[in-house]
């Protein structure tokens, strides 16, 4: 392990295929930041028109509660994803217990479940009118002691179950990469396994865990669908209330920009507290004998994994299938194939674009680590914290304006070259999910020792060659993971898809909206199940990839086969 400032010293002038030197990367990062900033600035511009009456009303009635609610939600979801994500990652990556090989990948499956789907399914199953409490009333005459589902606890639980895979995945990879030497060394100093975990393994995995938690929290902050199903007031629901109830898009945008400010501070705070330290894994982690959990302890571990998986994935899926069988199978028609294809196509295109841009940003940050580039890269990932609907409107405002200029320029009224095509939608996706791709790509970069690139450059390789021959092969797992994560997220995305899709580009998420917006949850089950199944595709690729990677890292474990 060595802690060094992560920089790649790039010699001047050797531009290779690229028409610009290292300084060019700075401008490239600046350009991306500008594209992201445009909608954010439009949001901020709303402050030019402050509606004092609405603000006075908000201060008097809602603001206190929704700030408290938002903080409680963040704290609750944060604790939950950390406990579930890190705990299960440690179990599956380092320990051995019955069913471990199976849980190892199965625990990633909930990634395919959109938060809004889990929310309405959960309420359907566990609320007063649902089958569980119904059964309890049949058996015991009352279900009054059952904890209220549509409550703070319920929201936190659902969000935690949907979002823990972000932490699980990244923490698991980090634990796997740590290898045996580290823990052995810790144990040799006399630490017990728990102490070694908290003092050595956990701090080493901190960047990965922090990245995963940040993603989860930003998602929780921006969520509307799930909190709306629970009627839980947060910043996002207030944004909708102001927008649709008071018809003040300006005040809604002002609330959104406050939210964004909050996130920006948190993100920069986390980066600052991590400081300049970078950890690089030296050498290949060798075989590591797993910590065997026998008897009761093994059973407890399996029970923990099984419980999480059951509530986050299996039970909701069964309920959805039940609804499909009972109510919405008749809706299945030829349209579904088209919707499925479009859902996949948008996911794939957005994934390719977003990861490519994320790669450029992560590289720029290393070639040209000056103040401007660092900030530009930071700004480029802010879109994730914007509530999807606000970002969608902001992007729409920018693009209709550009379309207007283009129409004037070419003298064709009604031309919609951006908003009438998938371009606007793809840009919106890229802005929204840049953080997902970037975190993945950037943490892959962290694992590449700068000395490798330095060596290549000192041997006369140009920039493009360094990227192509050193970085891309080493980063491939990270790029791949980033692409798949973005793909899944895009397929689940709802507000931007609704607002910016060209005519005829209905996706599964659009169909879910059509039904849920009218309270027809049972009929929404069919598109929801389809979406989950489609989302499993990238998740399974992700799983296979990481399992293969682990085999390469740790080699076959002798005697592990039953």
């Amino acid at each position, binding site marked *: 392990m060595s802690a060094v400032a992560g920089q790649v010293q790039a010699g001047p002038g050797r531009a290779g295929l690229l028409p610009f030197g290292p300084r060019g990367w700075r401008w490239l990062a600046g350009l991306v930041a500008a594209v992201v900033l445009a909608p954010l600035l439009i949001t901020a511009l709303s402050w030019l028109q402050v509606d004092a009456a609405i603000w006075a*009303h908000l201060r*008097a*009635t*809602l603001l206190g509660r929704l700030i408290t609610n938002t903080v409680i939600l963040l704290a609750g979801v944060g604790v939950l994803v950390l406990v579930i994500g890190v705990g299960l990652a440690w179990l599956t990556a380092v320990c051995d217990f019955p069913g471990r090989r199976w849980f190892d990948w199965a625990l990633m499956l909930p990634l395919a479940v959109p938060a809004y789907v889990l929310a309405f399914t959960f*309420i359907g199953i566990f609320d*007063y*009118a649902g089958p569980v*409490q*119904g059964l309890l*009333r049949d058996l015991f005459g009352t279900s009054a002691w059952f904890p*209220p589902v*549509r*409550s703070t606890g319920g929201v936190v639980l659902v969000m935690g179950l949907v979002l823990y895979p972000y932490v699980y995945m990244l923490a698991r990879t980090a634990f796997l990469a740590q290898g045996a030497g580290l823990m052995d060394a810790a144990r040799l100093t006399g630490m017990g396994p728990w102490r070694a975990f908290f003092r050595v393994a956990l701090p080493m995995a901190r960047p990965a865990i922090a990245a995963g938690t940040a993603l989860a929290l930003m998602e929780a902050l921006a969520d509307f669908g799930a909190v*709306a*199903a629970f*009627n839980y007031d947060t910043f996002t*629901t207030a944004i909708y*209330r102001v*927008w*649709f109830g008071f*018809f003040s*898009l300006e005040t809604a945008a002002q609330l959104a920009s406050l939210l964004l400010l909050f996130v920006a501070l948190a993100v920069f705070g986390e980066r600052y507290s991590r400081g300049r330290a970078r950890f690089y894994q030296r050498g290949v982690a060798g075989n590591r004998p797993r910590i065997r959990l026998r008897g009761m302890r093994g059973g407890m571990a399996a029970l923990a994994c099984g419980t999480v998986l059951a509530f986050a994935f299996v039970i909701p899926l069964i309920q959805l299938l039940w609804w499909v069988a009972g*109510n919405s199978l008749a809706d299945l028609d030829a349209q579904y194939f*088209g919707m499925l*294809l*479009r859902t*996949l*196509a948008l996911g*794939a*295109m957005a*994934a390719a674009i977003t990861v490519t841009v994320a790669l450029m940003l992560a590289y720029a940050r290393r070639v040209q680590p000056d103040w401007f580039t660092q900030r530009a890269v930071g700004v480029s990932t802010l879109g994730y914290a914007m509530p999807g609907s606000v970002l969608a*409107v902001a992007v*729409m*405002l920018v693009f*209709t304006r550009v*379309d*207007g200029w283009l*129409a004037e320029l070419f003298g064709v*009224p*009604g*031309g*919609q070259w951006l908003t009438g095509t*998938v371009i606007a939608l793809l840009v919106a996706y890229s802005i929204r999910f840049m953080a997902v791709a970037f975190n993945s790509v950037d943490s892959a970069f962290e694992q590449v020792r700068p000395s490798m690139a330095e060596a290549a450059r000192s041997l006369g390789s140009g920039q493009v060659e360094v990227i192509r021959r050193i970085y891309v092969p080493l980063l*491939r797992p990270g*790029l*791949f993971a980033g*692409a798949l994560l973005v*793909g899944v997220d895009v397929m689940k995305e709802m*507000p931007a898809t*609704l*607002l910016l*899709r*060209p*005519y*005829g580009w209905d996706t599964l998420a659009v*169909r879910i909206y*059509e039904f849920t917006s*009218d*309270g027809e*949850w049972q009929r929404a089950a069919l598109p929801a199940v389809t979406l989950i199944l489609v989302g499993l595709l990238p998740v399974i690729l992700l799983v296979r990839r990481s399992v293969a990677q682990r085999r390469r890292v740790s080699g076959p474990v002798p005697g592990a086969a039953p």
Partner: protein
Amino acid sequence: MRRMVFPLLLAVGVAGIVLGGVRGTGGQDEAAAVGDEVVVYSSRQEHLIRPLFERFTEETGIRVRYTTDNAGALMARLQSEGRNTQADLFMTVDAGNLWQAAERGLLAPMESELLTQAIPVHLRDPDGHWFGLSVRARTLVYSTERVDPEALRGYADLADEQWRGRLCLRSSQSVYNQSLVAMLIASHGVERTEEIVKGWVANLAAQPFSNDTSTMEAVVAGQCDVALVNTYYFGRLQSQNPDVPLAVHWADQEGNGVHVNISGAGVTRHAQRPGAARKLLEWLAGEEAQALYGALNHEYPAREGIDWDPLVASWGDYRVDDTNLAEAGRLQTQAVMLMDRAGYR
């Protein structure tokens, strides 16, 4: 696998664009002249409007292209597109939304003998910016097992002590509740309405629900005894389960009458095909389409003299609050603020 990832992603993407594009614009070539199609922005669900549009196309040969989203987002889009917009007709649910669209200058006033004759005065904009096309009544639904219908009166009476812990409501985030409270303000004034809403909140048996269907399911399950819902949701529930132990009570029959809301439409200000838009709007107010509204979604036709859907008719006739619905739009902001003050979430 290793080198295939990005080419694969791109290939799927390109295939999607081609197929999606072809599907999206399918049939456009047939519509050679601009006059042969009409573009609609709709916040009414796709599965409810598509059958209507298909019938319209069959009869007139005019193709309908449409996009769906919630009303607020579509209005923002209309506004920002300005004269560049493709949309000819803006269709939405709730009078408040239509009023707001007219207020922002997104709709063009239209004079149509046909429409003014077909649609009653209180269901359309006095200046002809928008017209109601279907009527939805928001009233009381109660448990037939636990409630004596004699005890039920109107909206205000749900604030009575006798309903403590027996009332279920949908969230105040719902535009239907916002319009209902706006209309209560119109008839009772702000102060009295605030008392009523506070009474409702005190009587709630459970957190407000996120939709009308869940609200009624709570009544069925016994969590509460009375709910305020749009009748077509009850219609859906009843058509799935004819024995559902719920019934409709028509509110305020001795007072102002039942609060009704509309789904409706207006021609956009910058419509490029105003003729076709007008044709579609008039067709939607015609007898065939009006009957379809009831058949598709258990709503009431806006036009008088159309037979109601049999299930809808089984709930009986009722007196309607005929205050012009533009009031709901005008008072909506006040209504939302009032609900916030009353702690109605």
